[in-house]
């Protein structure tokens, strides 16, 4: 390699920080190469302009500080699933139309398919993996879903649970109708809404008892 032959020039042009960034970026690119294949076009880097963003960011995910290399155009759902391995968050439509990718950002439910990862720097992200306590005890809403067998195929389940957990933070004692309105941004293709509502209401009850 040219770098090996000419170490002086290497030290001149590569700072330690750039080198570390490069190594981490290379790892991320190779592991996510299939998924991100069509985004090879790199927009021109613009240094130090007001509001420009760094690729290496540290995100607060499920209470942990997670350093990750993030592309400018990357959505939070992609980062969670394919960079951080948190595949409990599902991608259904990728167009804000189904709710499967719902996560909490600062306790508020969002479609993670429609959030730029760079915009959650400094915020608290909670995905379905972050609900259970460290000893494995399920969140009261998760327990309600288990108790009532709320879902059929359950692809939409993590989204529904995150929506419900977010809604219950605002309205801890909802009626069935209020809860239905609160989780109306989630779709279930099995059309299991009645059972889902029963299960999530049980979860709300569990939360109040806990």
């Amino acid at each position, binding site marked *: 390699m040219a770098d090996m032959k000419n170490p002086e020039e290497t030290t001149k042009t590569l700072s330690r920080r750039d080198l570390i960034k490069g190594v981490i970026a290379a790892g991320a690119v190779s592991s996510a190469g299939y998924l991100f294949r069509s985004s090879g076009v790199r927009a021109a880097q613009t240094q130090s302009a007001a509001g420009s963003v760094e690729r290496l960011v540290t995100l607060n995910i499920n209470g942990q500080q997670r350093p990750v290399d993030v592309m*400018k*155009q990357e959505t939070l759902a992609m980062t969670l699933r394919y960079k951080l391995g948190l595949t409990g968050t599902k991608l259904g439509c990728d167009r804000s139309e189904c709710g499967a990718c719902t996560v909490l950002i600062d306790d508020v*439910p969002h*479609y993670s398919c429609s959030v730029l990862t760079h*915009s959650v720097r400094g915020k608290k992200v909670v995905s379905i993996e972050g609900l259970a306590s460290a000893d494995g005890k399920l969140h009261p809403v998760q327990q309600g879903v288990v108790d009532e067998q709320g879902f059929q195929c359950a692809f939409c389940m993590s989204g529904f649970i995150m929506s419900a957990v977010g809604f219950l933070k605002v309205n801890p004692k909802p009626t069935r109708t209020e809860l239905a309105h609160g989780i109306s*941004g989630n779709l279930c293709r099995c059309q299991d809404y009645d059972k889902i509502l029963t299960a999530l209401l049980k979860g709300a009850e569990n939360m109040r008892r806990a």
Partner: protein
Amino acid sequence: MAVIRDVMPAFELFQPATTDDALALLAKYGSDAWVLAGGLDSFDWLKDRIKRPKVVVDMSQASGLRGIKEMNGGLEIGAMTTLTEVVRHPLVKEHFSLLAEGAELAASPQIRNQGTIGGNVSQDTRCWYYRSGWKCYRAGGNICFADTPTAINREHAILDADRCVAVNPSDSAPALIALDAQMVIRGPGGERVVNAQDYFVGPDINIMRMTVLKPNELLTAIRIPGTWGGAKFYFEKIRDRQVWDFPLVNIAAAMKVSGGKIEQIRMAVNGVAARPLRLTAVESAVIGKPADAATGEMAGKIAIQGAVALRFNAYKIPLMRNLVKRAIGGVQEAAWKS
């Protein structure tokens, strides 16, 4: 359009913390730049590869544009305030519940948690020919695909069409027009303020844009005067599904009634033209008349004058007529007698 399950094509991203920084970026990058508010309209365009901006200016970090404050007996709402924040704000609910109702009927809970009031009024039309990348008038072409003999145009315009038959999809816009709101716009030359009804443009004025906002300008705030605080309000939205869907037709009205007679009124509808329409002919016809079903019936007939149906949207004419009638006479009194 096939759904592409993939990330968006690359763009340069800026997240300015202030309006000044954002305006500097827009001045620098010109037509290469795309302004992102909540992103819920934008991401469709970017993911579908229909719009390919080189630079995205994401306003999410501009905290000064977020929040609601009292101002001269009215309110000033920052453009980046989310619809949920608008809906839940005590002053909005107490004095201007018309806006809270309209905003709450938009989209879904998660979208309202992220979608902004500025984005909701500035969003592009939902015409699927246009949004699928067909090169129509609005996209700089020379044809309207939604107004051909075989076009599917159930959701399109019945009024004020001019070559393009797309409609404005905003639920908050008619409420803001009925409340005499003002839009605060900042650009390189400083600040300008336009009335809500003049913020929107039809294809006769500019066939490629929905608002008067220029590419180097930002909508920074929406001001609601105290004028209509506590008036009698009516908002109704008709749509196919009760979540997510844009309005087929919606209506917003603010009325001051004294001794059973309408003293003052503002009324606006959306989903019928490329801009939300303030119904000034209706307003002047009903002043001094009782707020009842008979007045509503008369008003409904006036409202639809000049309406022209396309192949699949004729239902919108009686729908709009009935919504105007109900807005004046109330739901109970207004059951349509045929």
